């Protein structure tokens, strides 16, 4: 089969601070004088000597922890940013979906945004005309076509945005973690649509943290770690290996302090997390009916109010719960506040190990657009284990995944 993407020693160097917000001339002048003192530590390789080939019709998953260079790779292949070194050859029309709804304007109607967004993705007007009805039908929103999207609910907004993206048919499709939005049933519909796209022989590069989606869609996986290729291979093998390493590496401890590498370029971030039980004991093993308390410490400066999300994942990296301070409790924290306590449970989880991810967001949530400004994600903040789960009469211990994830009360009767 013919090669459609050939990547040869591709590298991308960022100057430290380059990815931070813009500078003023004053800062620039100050930096100019400081420049002499600093040397190599001014740079970071977001991607270093990455080489691979992709054949026509292949569906490739790209995995790796945050900061591994996944998005940088997609951005280089879609020509959004230039490589520092190396080269890539791409045959065919490339389309990138790094985000859905790019260029959507809140004042414009659904109809108008379909055209604008389509044109931005690289569709011709004729092409959009032809697919217009299909797009509207897929999004299930005929009635609201002529309403400005600022009046849409966040679900509607995402559906429309996704629908345009799903009908975009370039030869090579580059997809970043965009499936993480929208309601579950719509996500499934999109996955289905993606699956049918790949069956048509289109080449797809798909970045995701969702290992089950990767396994379902991709035959081959590229695993990136710190800008380099760790492994390339069959998707089921590589994803399994990745998951195992993830758990090993981050082990289990009731106190976790973030290493400096992870927070180097952040202005406001999670620094430390501790896990306690109700009686104030530091521990990592809990009973299914115990409450769990997280003590979180933040560091740095922020100007606006911020809010926090915690997510619980099981061993298979399936998110089983997401608790959000703003969305669920209307709780936004003052910039002054640097210590936060989260209390949750009883978890009713079955025996197994679970991972908590912490997300820091700032500003008001735009429910209308679903837009959120994430300033820090601590993927593997802390792990805990459920060690005891005997909710019923016998001594039978419920285990994940053998007996499911959650305890649901049940009884049996003669009837």
């Amino acid at each position, binding site marked *: 089969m013919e090669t459609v993407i050939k990547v040869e020693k591709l590298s991308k160097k960022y100057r430290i601070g380059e990815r931070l917000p*813009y500078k*003023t001339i004053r800062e620039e002048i100050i930096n100019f004088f400081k420049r002499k003192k600093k040397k190599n530590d001014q740079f970071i390789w977001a991607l270093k000597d990455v080489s691979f080939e992709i054949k026509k019709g292949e569906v490739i998953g790209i995995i790796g922890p945050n900061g591994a260079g996944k998005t940088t790779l997609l951005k280089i292949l879609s020509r959004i940013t230039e490589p520092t070194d190396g080269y*890539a050859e791409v045959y065919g029309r*490339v389309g*990138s979906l790094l985000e859905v709804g790019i*260029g959507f*304007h809140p*004042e414009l109607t659904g109809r108008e945004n379909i055209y604008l967004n389509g044109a931005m993705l690289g569709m011709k007007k004729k092409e959009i005309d032809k697919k217009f009805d299909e797009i509207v039908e897929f999004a299930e929103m005929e009635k609201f076509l002529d309403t400005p999207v600022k009046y849409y609910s966040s679900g509607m907004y995402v559906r429309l945005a996704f629908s345009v993206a799903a009908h975009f048919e370039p030869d090579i499709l580059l997809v970043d973690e965009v499936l993480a939005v929208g309601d579950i049933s719509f996500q499934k519909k999109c996955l289905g649509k993606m699956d049918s796209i790949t069956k048509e022989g289109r080449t797809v590069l798909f970045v995701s943290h969702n290992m089950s989606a990767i396994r379902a869609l991709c035959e081959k996986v590229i695993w990136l770690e710190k800008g380099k290729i760790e492994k390339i291979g069959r998707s089921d093998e590589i994803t399994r290996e990745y998951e195992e390493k993830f758990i090993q590496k981050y082990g289990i401890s009731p106190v976790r302090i973030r290493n400096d590498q992870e927070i180097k370029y952040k202005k406001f971030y999670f620094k430390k997390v501790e896990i306690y039980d109700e009686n104030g004991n530091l521990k990592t093993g809990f009973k299914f009916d115990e409450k769990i308390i997280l003590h979180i410490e933040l560091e740095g400066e922020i100007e606006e109010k911020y809010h926090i999300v915690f997510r619980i994942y099981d061993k298979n990296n399936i998110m089983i719960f997401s608790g959000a301070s703003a969305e669920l409790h209307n709780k936004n924290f003052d910039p002054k506040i640097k210590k936060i306590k989260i209390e949750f449970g009883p978890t009713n989880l079955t025996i197994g190990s679970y991972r908590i991810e912490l997300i820091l967001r700032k500003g008001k949530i735009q429910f209308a657009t679903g837009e959120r400004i994430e300033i820090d994600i601590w993927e593997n903040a802390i792990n805990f284990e459920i060690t005891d789960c005997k909710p019923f009469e016998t001594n039978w211990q419920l285990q994940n995944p053998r007996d499911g994830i959650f305890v649901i009360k049940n009884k049996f009767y003669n009837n």
Partner: protein
Amino acid sequence: MEKIIIKPKNRWQAVNLKEIYEYRELLFFLIWKDIKVKYKQTIFGIGWAILQPLFMMIIFTLFFGKFAKIPSDNIPYPIFSYTGLIIWTYFANSLLFAVESIVRHQNVVTKIYFPKILLPLSSILSHLLDFLISFFVLIFFLLFYKISPTGNIIYLPIFILISILTAFSVSLYLSALNVYYRDVRYIMNFLIQVWFFLTPITYPTSIIPEKFRLIYGLNPMVGVIEGFRWCILGKEITSIKMMYFSIFIIFILFIGGIYFFKNMERSFADVI
């Protein structure tokens, strides 16, 4: 099949004109969006395009024309200042809008590939609608003052093109710099104000002493406004040399701008 080579580019390059042509539909959509969005949720809508130069004209006529008795080369002062004002308003407004265009589309710039030059270009072109509307008002003034255009009027499209080119060229530098240094946005108001007084809008070029005219012509808007008045009002051109020089400067600005923009564009997505 289309083949794209991606590698670091080190040489200075000009903007790829062929690519702009390929993306003409997107350019059209961007212009269309700017126009649509601009007057949404305004009561007066497109009427604002008429009001701004009109009010300025009334105030200038009163203070500069009547009270200060600034000459206007034997053209009724209202007409004299209005012709200057509509082209200036187009220049200033479209420039201000274009300078912010890339930063305004931050999300787009970091998420998809397209020639970024479309952003300032569409901003400049979308303001033409305002210009055309205020131009129609000018026709009413001309009828009112019974001024009939001379044969020079056939050159009008050329001068409109030149004024588009001027605004576009200047925006190429400033919009790109604005990505790197947001200081630009603070300088803009000041710049526009100073530039306004260095441009013959409220006064005729004939009051500029002979020896300063060439330096004065460094301001590209001098050529644009002189030419505009020459086309519409048949006003004699004060100094042909000054005008050619001014237009020459525009082309220099344009060519430089194209190179400048292309080279700044390469790291827009990284620094914005």
